């Protein structure tokens, strides 16, 4: 069962991604349980989770943020293919890095790109879903952890 400490794994993974790739640490907001709202990004990627847990890890962001991110990575181009690809790689890296704490039984699929919005109704099928808000260079983006065993301590 994932407890609050394990949710921190995803937060640390997110911080580590932005710090390593861009040199600037993002601000992480307080994670909250998914409600009726939908989260809208221009690009969204999901990583399917199987093994000792079931569900998805999502990353979603707006086009402008992704263009800035690609530029920081040294990319001179920011076409649709690269914008979609980079959200997939971020989701993949955050989910994959979580195996350091969650172990090799936390099995991840290759990224799947989807329509920009994350439909939270679908997430209700899981035991619990948490939204991690991220602020980086004035842009907002989100990591959503939707797993069938995720649970906060308090």
């Amino acid at each position, binding site marked *: 069962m994932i407890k609050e400490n394990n949710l921190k794994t995803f937060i640390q993974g997110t911080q580590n*991604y932005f710090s390593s790739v861009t040199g600037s640490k993002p601000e992480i907001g307080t994670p909250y349980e998914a409600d009726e709202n939908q989260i809208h990004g221009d690009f969204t990627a999901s990583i399917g989770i199987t093994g000792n847990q079931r569900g998805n890890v999502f990353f979603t962001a707006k086009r402008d943020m992704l263009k800035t991110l*690609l530029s920081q990575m*040294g990319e001179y181009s920011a076409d649709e293919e690269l914008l979609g690809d980079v959200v997939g790689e971020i989701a993949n*890296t955050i989910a*994959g890095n979580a195996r*350091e704490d969650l*172990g090799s039984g936390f099995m*991840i699929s290759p990224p799947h790109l989807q329509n920009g919005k994350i439909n939270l109704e679908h997430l209700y099928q899981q035991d619990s879903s948490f939204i991690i808000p991220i602020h980086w260079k004035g842009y907002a983006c989100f990591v959503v952890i939707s797993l069938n065993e995720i649970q906060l301590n308090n």
Partner: protein
Amino acid sequence: MKLLIVDDSLVIRRSIERMIKPDFFKSIHSAQNGAIALKLFKSSPFDIVTMDITMPEMDGLTCIESMIRLRPSIRILVITALADKGTAVEAVKRGAQGFLLKPFTNDAMSEALNDLLEDV
């Protein structure tokens, strides 16, 4: 020397290409999954391969095993987001010589490749 970059992410393939020193490699090729990489590997004498693990069609671990069977002297650097020790151990068991965790910096990439090149 010839380098083959294997990763399903175009952003990562391009990042690796930018980070490596072109003087070391007379040619650089890339593939987005293990199946395509294996096809290229069979038709061209690569010296170094960078290999992702989680990919569609054929994953990196399966691809490493096949490449080692075909050419045991090949040097393979695994570059993956999978941060558990078990993945690193399994990659080495299958024949990889280096392991670099994503996200990686320019310095970490250079160091990992230099370590691999020392033995070539």
